[in-house]
């Protein structure tokens, strides 16, 4: 089952499953099995932005006014987000492209990953402005224990899927021994790994960012680090599109709208999927604890953050067919968060870079008769 960059067989992408059918050959979008992915591509591309467009220069002054514990909160979150986007900028491509089977999903994966690389570049933009040499911050990401625990938990599902896919694509199904270890490679086993991997990614996109988002926006509520907040607002908007895509994949499987074997697997591994989510919730709460180990910040403390994680987890778990696990956290403990998560904040002047329609407006050069006024030829 070796991978071909152009599968010469005549296949019908309208009858292929999302993953692990025939590999995609012609990148065509005139007909689609799951047109939602094409729509998500369009949405995501319409949100295109560049970190350099956002002026973060004032943040340097603000940063120097922060207390040490607030600096810890700010920098730690940037490190964690840098980790998450480092993983997301490559992993959907490496893990999912070799096994994807419909063109619109293949292109969605590439689009999604590309936007994660914009996020990564924006962290460098932010840090370069704060420090003459941001190396120390970046270098700590692979040393910091708190970040390493999370990195391991996220990357293991990707790595496992990638490894089994490689064995399958080089040896086919059956027992394969590598470095003295024997692996039983079957397509069903790979599908299980894929299912767990998408659940882990969904948890990442759906809740892992929200503790740091909350801190960023809590600073912005105090009119601090507002350049950073503008960038994070754009990132949050992208993450909402990403999470919709992973929710779609999971729901298409479990409601039997794609591969029937994946529907079986979704039932079989339901408890494990639940656990993946709950582990992410637990880790995020531990992260909140780590952030505030030296003291809270105005407007936000550990327990409020943990409540917010539970509130978000309820919404996200219901979206993929679970009951809300935190029954007593039905109302939003941080209502001010929502104004930063709205996709278009129309009250702001259009020349502000965070307005989504602004960039698009530059391209969409519609001309009305009235615009021309008394222009004579």
């Amino acid at each position, binding site marked *: 089952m070796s991978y071909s960059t152009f599968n010469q067989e005549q296949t019908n992408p309208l009858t292929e499953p999302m993953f692990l059918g025939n590999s995609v050959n012609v990148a065509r979008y005139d007909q689609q099995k799951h047109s*939602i992915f094409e*729509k*998500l591509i369009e*949405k995501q591309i319409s949100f295109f932005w560049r970190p350099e467009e956002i002026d973060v220069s004032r943040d340097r002054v603000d940063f120097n006014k922060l207390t040490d514990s607030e600096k810890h909160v700010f920098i730690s979150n940037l490190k964690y987000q840098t980790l998450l986007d480092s993983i997301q900028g490559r992993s959907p491509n490496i893990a999912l492209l070799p096994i994807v089977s419909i063109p619109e999903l293949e292109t969605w994966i590439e689009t999604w990953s590309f936007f994660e690389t914009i996020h990564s570049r924006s962290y460098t933009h932010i840090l370069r402005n704060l420090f003459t040499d941001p190396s120390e911050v970046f270098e700590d990401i692979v040393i910091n224990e708190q970040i390493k625990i999370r990195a391991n938990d996220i990357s293991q599902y990707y790595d496992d899927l990638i490894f089994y896919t490689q064995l399958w694509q080089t040896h086919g199904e059956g027992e394969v021994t590598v470095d003295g270890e024997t692996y039983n490679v079957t397509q069903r086993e790979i599908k299980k790994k894929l299912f767990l991997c998408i659940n882990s990614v969904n948890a990442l996109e759906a809740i892992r960012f929200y503790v740091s988002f909350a801190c960023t926006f809590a600073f912005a509520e105090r009119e601090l680090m507002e350049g950073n907040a503008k960038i994070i607002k754009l990132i949050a*908007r992208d993450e*909402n*599109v990403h*999470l*919709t895509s992973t*929710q*779609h994949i999971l*729901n298409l499987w479990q*409601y039997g709208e794609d591969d029937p074997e994946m529907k079986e697997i979704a039932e079989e591994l339901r408890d494990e999927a639940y656990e993946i989510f709950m582990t992410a919730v637990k880790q995020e709460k531990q992260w909140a604890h780590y952030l505030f180990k030296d003291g809270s910040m105005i407007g936000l403390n550990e327990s409020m953050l943990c409540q917010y994680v539970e509130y978000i987890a309820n*919404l996200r778990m*219901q*979206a993929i*067919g679970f009951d809300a696990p935190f029954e007593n956290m039905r*109302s*939003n403990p941080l*209502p001010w968060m*929502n104004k930063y*998560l*709205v*996709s*278009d904040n129309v009250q702001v002047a259009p020349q502000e870079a965070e307005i989504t329609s602004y960039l698009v407006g530059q391209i969409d050069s519609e001309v009305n008769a009235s615009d021309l006024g008394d222009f004579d030829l």
Partner: protein
Amino acid sequence: MTKTFKVIVNGGPELAVDATEGTLLEALEKHQLEMHYHCRSGFCGACRTKLNSGQVRYTTEPLAYVRKGDILPCCCVPESDLDIEH
């Protein structure tokens, strides 16, 4: 022209919602209900609501996955009286 429907949320009192004035989400906010939302434009799914009875019409095509029996109030208006759980 107004087009007013009765909307019951979480088994509460009947609220009057004019379908010609903004989305269902906006209408319920005007009634001082705490609504869940993020994007307010149909792609994040945070406003997901259970529709017990009635019909809605989408003014923007939702991109979030809408499970059977659910609606996204940020991008729809009522087309009949509604009973919802939010």
